[in-house]
């Protein structure tokens, strides 16, 4: 289950809108890091044993659990390949993105 957060860019039109100190008022979810990806993980659920290892090791919090199955969030997945590498049944394939 993914948190539902705002993924908006924040624009300050005037200095009046800028806070006194540089401080965060939003998340980085507007930064769709999926575009960084060269190759993408595709999970073959038939061979998935629901071990949760791919979920656990994703540095980009881009595998979430939906109805007890792992799902890749392609909006953010950077394509590092850790999930595929660590999957004990090798059921995740890293597939080239079309260009």
């Amino acid at each position, binding site marked *: 289950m993914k948190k539902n957060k705002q993924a908006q860019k924040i624009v300050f039109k005037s200095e009046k809108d800028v806070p006194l100190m540089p*401080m965060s008022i939003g998340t980085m979810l507007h930064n769709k890091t999926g575009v960084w990806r060269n190759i993408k993980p595709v999970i073959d659920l038939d061979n998935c044993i629901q071990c949760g290892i791919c979920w656990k090791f994703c540095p980009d919090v881009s595998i979430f659990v939906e109805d007890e199955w792992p799902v890749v969030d392609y909006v953010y997945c950077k394509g590092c390949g850790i999930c595929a590498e660590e999957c004990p049944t090798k059921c995740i394939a890293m597939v080239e993105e079309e260009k």
Partner: protein
Amino acid sequence: MKKVIMGNHALSYGAMLGRAQVISAYPITPQTQVVELLSEMCADKTLDAKFIKVESEHSAMAACLGASLAGARTFTATSSQGLTLMHELLHWASGGRLPVVMGNINRAMAPGWSIWSDQNDSLSQRDTGWIQFYCCSNQEVLDTVIQAFKVSEKLLIPSMVVLDAFSLSHTYEVVDVPEQEKVDAYLPPFKPQIKITPDEPHAFGGLTSPEHYFELRYKLQKDMEKAPALIEETGKEYEKMFGRYLGLVDEYCCDDADIILITSGTVGSTARVAAEELRQEGIRAGNLRIKAFRPFPFETVRNIVKGAEKIAVVDRNISYGHHGMFYEEVKSALYGHNDSLPVFGFIAGLGGRDITPSTFKEITNYALKKKKPEEEIIWIGVKR
């Protein structure tokens, strides 16, 4: 209550009456008595504060910044080498809008080691975004610390309360120590709207791109520019409650002066004696002691010097490769406003060389003799 105390203890009492909540400091001559007394106050609970006894001044300032961001009122004190060791973090305090109040004892910079007074330590922090007050008596030190908390917390800009090594720090004078309740009435608790807390998680001070940085710093300067009026206002309020006015400058007989001595710190106090004596000798001298050097009190200075014939700025400091810093800044303030007024720049008393009333007489005589300054810097008291 009247007490005979040293300038350093005046700082400690100021912090105590101001109810500093987190103190972090590191010892250095001639500041040590400040922290020693505060240690005792914390140990015997006269003051309910956490005292973080750090391993360097750099860490002292860092601890204050953290505590201030958490919403606590913070205080530290240092001098010379210690102050300059904090330099990076002084920029941090102002840029982070953290209203730390710091006492600094003016001491000359090494090498050679000096423990004696001059202003190069604090004045070379003039570009770090701190409000700076220069004091000339122990009473003023104590009062100013309390006022500084108020001003700083209102503007979210840190303040430095500066006093001379020995001639204030170690000098005992009679000081009226105000009552706690009255101080509490003057100075409400620090309650910042935004602070570090898990209840409202913000990240403070993250990477700030060219898209945003400029506006943040613009706001800092704009708030800095509010300080002169606020210092006047809080100074008058202080006068109402405690009978002592705390303003941007201290003026003595400038109205009808042919020559105005522009001074600061204890030197400014001694200058007043000289001005009194000069007047007795028939010379209409005045003394303008600048108390709030940052922000520079442009308007006030321009107004006061309006009628004068000549100005002599006396600096116990120097920006090597330029001039005395008060001299430089006074000229910068008067440029385009009062251009025909001859302003003389004197440098005296570096590294603790004494400045006496007769030093000022020498200065006055020099300035009165010349039509306008013939030297970029006029050195007083160098052995030649």
